[in-house]
């Protein structure tokens, strides 16, 4: 030891740090590691990119939706000026009939925008030159257009969706989405939970070894293939069983059932994870009291895993709502407000895909409208996912 120390002392280094001189054998100071810092910065940016994505989604969807709701559409009132109007006049005579106008309505004649102040029979008094338009004279028999904005109330309560003619009620799309999702849930939730119980409580290792890969395969099949399946097998099957008059070629029931099949593996694998997480000691306690396997599985294990199972259900619902290709292929084109699942109807997602698959010019009413629908879809699925995470966190069972 003594020799070592001497040798070290011989090779010692005098290091100056500020006013302190350290007579040290090794240099232990921190040194700037630029490469490390750069790499760490790059990696942080990779992570932060995800935030950018979310911001991007909210921003773009929001921007176009805003545009959608504030866009001014001019609807032809089928009224015209009876007499020519010059730049001085503030009261015009207009034709009776056509679309009814009210005080406060914004109207447009040629390029000039005006606001109706007083409406008295065939005479209308206006405030002229609004929205930056120039006050000009207009000849007789010029068409009058009235401004038709999309109001939020109309959006959420209207029952017809036809942007081209100014109808913006989202209900036909929403009911179609609800119907397909309902069918999907009816299929997937009971079956998925049942499969999960079987796999976790009853199945031998060999059975599990066969069944789990099959479920994984089902989960990995692209949705467009499921769409083909819905159209070419499920629909003809439904038509044969229930009659070709009851079931149309495009219908929401067929699409809904196949969506259920699509999400079944999701429900079963998440539920199974939850069930397997229940410790063995609980099952032993139940058996020790003279419970049968069924009673143990259903009355002890499933309640103990309830938060995980609920989360699975919610996530699966969210997935069903967001499903696009199956409904695009099999449910039908064209919004249709109906509660008959055997008729064709278009869901929110199917509508977005159909509209954007065609010729779509930026800033047209169609373009903006799909973003409004998309925004709603985003919020619904996001809320469901957040709720499911909250449930898992808050009600996560403590077993010990």
């Amino acid at each position, binding site marked *: 030891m003594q020799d070592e120390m001497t040798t070290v002392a011989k090779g010692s280094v005098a290091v100056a740090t500020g006013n302190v001189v350290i007579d040290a054998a090794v240099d232990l100071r921190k040194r700037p*590691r630029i*490469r490390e810092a750069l*790499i760490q910065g790059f*990696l942080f940016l*990779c*992570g932060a*990119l*995800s*935030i950018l*994505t*979310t911001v*991007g*989604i909210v921003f*773009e*969807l929001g921007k*176009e939706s805003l545009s959608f709701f504030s866009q001014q559409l001019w609807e032809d009132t089928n009224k015209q000026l009876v007499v020519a109007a010059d730049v001085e006049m503030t009261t015009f005579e207009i034709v009776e009939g056509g679309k009814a106008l009210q005080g406060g309505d914004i109207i447009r004649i040629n390029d000039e925008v005006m606001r109706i102040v007083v409406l008295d029979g065939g005479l209308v008094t206006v405030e002229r030159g609004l929205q930056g338009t120039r006050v000009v004279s207009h000849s007789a028999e010029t068409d009058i257009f009235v401004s038709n904005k999309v109001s939020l109330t109309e959006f959420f309560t209207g029952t017809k969706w036809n942007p081209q003619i100014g109808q913006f009620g989202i209900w036909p799309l929403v009911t179609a989405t609800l119907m397909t999702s309902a069918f999907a849930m009816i299929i997937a939730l*009971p*079956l998925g939970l*049942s*499969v999960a119980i*079987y796999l976790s409580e*009853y199945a031998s290792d060999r059975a599990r070894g066969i*069944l789990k890969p*099959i*479920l994984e*395969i*089902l989960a*990995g*099949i*692209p*949705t*467009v*293939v*499921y*769409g*083909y*399946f819905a*159209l*070419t*097998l499920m629909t003809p099957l439904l038509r044969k069983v229930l009659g070709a008059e009851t079931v149309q070629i495009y219908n929401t029931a067929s699409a809904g059932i196949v969506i259920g*099949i699509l999400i079944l593996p999701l429900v079963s694998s998440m539920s199974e994870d939850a069930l397997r997480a229940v410790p063995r000691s609980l099952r032993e306690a139940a058996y020790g009291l003279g419970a*049968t*396997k*069924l*009673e143990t599985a259903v009355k002890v294990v499933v309640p103990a895993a309830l938060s995980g199972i609920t989360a699975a259900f919610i996530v699966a619902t*969210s997935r069903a*709502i*967001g499903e*696009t*290709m199956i409904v695009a292929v099999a449910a039908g084109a064209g919004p249709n407000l109906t509660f008959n699942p055997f008729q064709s109807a278009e869901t929110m*997602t199917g509508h*977005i895909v159909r509209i*954007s*698959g065609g010729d779509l010019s930026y800033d047209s009413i169609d373009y903006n409208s*799909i973003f409004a629908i*998309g925004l709603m*879809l*985003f919020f619904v*699925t996001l809320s469901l996912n*957040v709720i499911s995470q909250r449930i898992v966190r808050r009600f996560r069972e403590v077993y010990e």
Partner: protein
Amino acid sequence: MADQQVRTQGTASLPQGEGFQENFAARHRAGRVWYVVFQASTIIGIVVLTALLYNIVNGAFGLAAIQNEVNPETLAVEGVPLDKLDKQHLVDILQQNLSKGLLRRFESEQPFAERTREDVYDLVIERVVEPQVVHTWSLYDSLFRRSAVLAAAAEDYPDARIEFMSWIDPKFVTTPQSSDPEKAGVRTAILGSLWTIAITIVFAFPLGVGAAIYLEEYATDHWVNRIIQTNINNLAGVPSIIYGMLGLAIFVRALEPLSSGTLFGLTDPTTANGRTIFSAGLTLGLLILPLIIINGQEAIRAVPDSLRRASYGLGATKWQTVWHHVLPNALPGILTGTILAVSRAIGETAPLIVVGASTFITVDPSGPFSKFTTLPIQIYQWTARPQDEFRNIAAGAIIVLLALLLALNASAVLLRNRYSRRVRS
């Protein structure tokens, strides 16, 4: 049955205690019933998978009634049938039956003098005889109800010949898209898919793995990091069509100079807009990014801490530890997860339709700034057509897609197994 009696007799001698009603038989019965129910529900999964595969195979093979526009027998020259004519006679037939414009086009593509006799014969068949598929039957019908099919064909399509067609064959994979179902192939779509996925991987893999490394190795419990983590978890659950809309708004529209290639002077002359493979690839990249990150995190978390401690103990920096020790150890898991994410991306249809996949292109993509179509989109378009034959080729394309995915997933499983074997040894 004797067993049953003995059983109840035996157990009846066990006291029940006050207040307890014997109910063992009922409970066991219930147990048996529900066991069957649970088992049956798993069988449904197998049944559905079989039905799906059966359905697809049923559509991809079968008898077809083929009718010729022009009867080849009428084209015989001096008693010599069409298939025995020499090249000069065949060229004559073409000149007699095709328009001038068409002849000029063929000549300019490749002069008749240079074409082989087989080429010219094919052209005659394609353009003059023009066989058309007028009806198809499913494989099941073709195999098990053959006589009924032949009878129906004789009645409805007397001029047609019945041939067994497999709509998927090697030619299918190498022929480009066409509006004619008999001639259409999936080559354009496959190349489109491959180009798109290449861009997706180049974009998403480094960023995803980088984010995963950051979150697992560098991130402290700061609120920013927690937000990033929650955010990624939420993004994984966003419907894929929303990603398509994001891609449309940002990559196609806002970044048009970049995505159309104008910035690099590489625009596709027929497009000159942002609906290119580049935009499609990036959109899919954003879609699978959360999956790669979450999976990467799990793989990195699984690396035993003792490895890191050994590295630090030798005086290595964090990045050196990560690069030389953690990453190599986590790599198989990361790769497996990436392969699975990629196979998910290959099957995605909705986001790419929104981004603007072309409805009809016959030219192979030449680079990242070309118009694009992908295999699932092709399937969608063919499925949506009313004619039966398009369903058949859709089924064929589905088989190609499933084969591709099977290969990918099989390699992921192999990788996983090799990895776990290595760790165990």
